[in-house]
């Protein structure tokens, strides 16, 4: 089985020159759920931005293969069309862009890039309504501009809605649990779990293990000082809850 995502000795820095990722290796196979845990400021979000192609980050060496192709050569929109999805830690508000037309544009832009037929507006509306129901998103919210006037929890659910609509092969969830109460957390987790399949994978970035009680990972990595310093199974998350990250930060130093 060829890996879905393969990160080889990745080094990256922010535009201002600060090194954030220093020699990272990671292999995610189809169907696997990986969790990356680590203390605040370890560079976990940077990893998600580097993988999704956000401007302002520079890869200085290393390689990332996605479906066997050079991910770093692709524009952010091409990465999305190839099946990569980033659920943002802080989803942005886009005044003046209605949610439905945003979703329609996104779905069809991806389909166009992949050479697939476009989704019609009624078909999209049906799908979105069904997903909104599952995620307990008020239909009125879909009439608003993207994320405008949404609470923190609503924005997070809207991210999951987009993920479920776009059906990526790899979804990166960056602190998907921050700002969620326990009910919303369960809804989000159910949404993510509903997409689990032998072809789809998840990379869950979090510094709280609670989310991992609902989305049980196959592999848990500890990320510190710009690289993965330790890996284990789902039990590692529980262990970290008890011990904290201190010993791994030491290990890396």
């Amino acid at each position: 089985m060829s890996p879905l995502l393969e990160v080889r000795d990745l080094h990256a820095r922010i535009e201002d020159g600060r090194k954030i990722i220093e020699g990272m290796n990671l292999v995610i196979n189809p169907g696997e759920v990986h969790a990356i845990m680590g203390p605040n400021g370890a560079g976990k979000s940077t990893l998600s931005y580097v993988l999704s192609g956000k401007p302002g980050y520079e890869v200085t060496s290393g390689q990332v293969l996605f479906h066997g192709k050079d991910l770093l050569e692709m524009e952010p929109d091409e990465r999305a069309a190839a099946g990569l999805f980033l659920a943002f830690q802080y989803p942005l508000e886009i005044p003046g862009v209605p949610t439905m037309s945003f979703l329609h544009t996104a779905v069809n832009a991806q389909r166009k890039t992949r050479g697939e037929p476009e989704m019609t507006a009624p078909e999209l509306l049906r799908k979105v309504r069904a997903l909104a129901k599952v995620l307990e998103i008020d239909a009125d919210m879909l009439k608003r501009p993207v994320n405008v006037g949404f609470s923190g929890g609503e924005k997070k659910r809207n991210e999951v809605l987009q993920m479920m609509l776009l059906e990526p092969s790899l979804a990166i969830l960056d602190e998907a649990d921050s700002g969620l109460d326990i009910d919303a957390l369960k809804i989000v987790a159910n949404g993510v779990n509903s997409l689990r399949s032998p072809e789809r994978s998840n990379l869950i970035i979090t510094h709280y293990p609670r989310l991992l009680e609902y989305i049980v990972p196959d592999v848990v990595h500890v990320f510190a000082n710009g690289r993965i310093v330790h890996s284990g199974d789902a039990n590692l998350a529980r262990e970290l809850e008890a011990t904290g990250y201190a010993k791994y930060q030491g290990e890396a130093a």
Partner: protein
Amino acid sequence: MTMAAEARPISAQPARGQPARTAAETAFATTFAAVKAELPGSATFAARREEAFGRFADAGLPHRRVEEWRYTDLRRLMREMAPLAATPATQLEKAPEAAGLLAAVECRKLYVVDGVFAPHLSDLADLEAGLTILSLADALRDDAHVGGVAVSKRLGETFPCTDVMFALNAAFAAEGVVVHVAEGAELARPLELIHVNTGTEPVSMFTRSLVVLEKGAKANLVESHEGPDGVAYQVHTALELVVGEGAQLDRVKLTREGDAALHISTVLLDIAASALVRTAGFMLGGAIVRNQTFAQLTGKEIHAVFGGVSLLGNRQHADTSLAVEHLAPGCESRENFRAVLDDHARDVFQGRIAVRREAQQTDARMMTRALLLSDTAEADNKPELEIFADDVQCAHGCTTGNLDEQVKFYLMARGIPEKEAEALLIQAFVGEVVDAIELEGVREALIGATRSWLKERA
């Protein structure tokens, strides 16, 4: 070219304290002297033309030391006067189909082709009760009256305007349209006043129109100005809008001149008590464009909305200058302008709000926002508030910035290519003005025009 005997002396010597005349100024003087005898109108009207030209001649083309024209230095930008268009121009047999904004909207189309009103192309059949449409040239020749007042008397007497380019128009203008909507008449179909230039030679055109809505009348007016690329034609146009008590006017003006054209437009807007006026400008084409509007709110409880969108690229220069004068208590005015600038384009917005001592409880707001898509684009913004009443609300705001890179990345991360993401954000930016346009067909047409602009950009 022969000069009429009573022509003002044209001298190469500058008057005291005046710089030498430019080639354009000299050409205006020579041309006016040559054609003024043929311009339509009574002796009284001819004297007014003479007086108006005198004002232009004394001041010359406005330049950067004239505060109102500070950012649009016509003396520099308008080196020459294109020869006056021949009258009558070659008459088209068929109305140009692509012209105008409202191709898909049921409306009454009136054509001004190459600066001349073309009744044979215009839809003048089955005029609604209370609607009168005249050719300006005919109205001046025949001393026609609308609403019991001579057209020649109404022109220029809406309120005094001392602007020098308006004076130039008043001197030359022979052609245009007169629209009169009688008391209480509500026009079911929008009126579309289509100005289209077809010539391949650079010419000057002067048009002047008058639209009067009597008490309680209601109308939608769409005006468009278009022409071929690559021809340095010059348009001087003026429109007087008289909106009676309790009347309602919705107006959109589209400026889509050719890429080498000069377009100088003056609108005088006189609004009576309790009227509702919503006017929006949509600026897409032309090399040098000045859209100046002078509005007077003369009665109580007027609601006036001014909107504008400029989409500019290359080396386009567009100047929107708006002066709103509150003369009576309890009126509301709203100004909302957006500019999207690419390449070396330059957008100018000058907004003046004057609140007279009597105009208590005025509520006036002005907001302008510019979006710069390139490092070489420029937005100039000059708000001026002049308030003599003490119980008023008057606010202005202005922003200039780039597209939000974070938001753009968010859209791209969802699979939307860069240009498409930018287009979505630009449409949203412009939508803040376009969405406020009342008539759906007009709104749709403007959204379509924005899309085409974005497509050409990409």
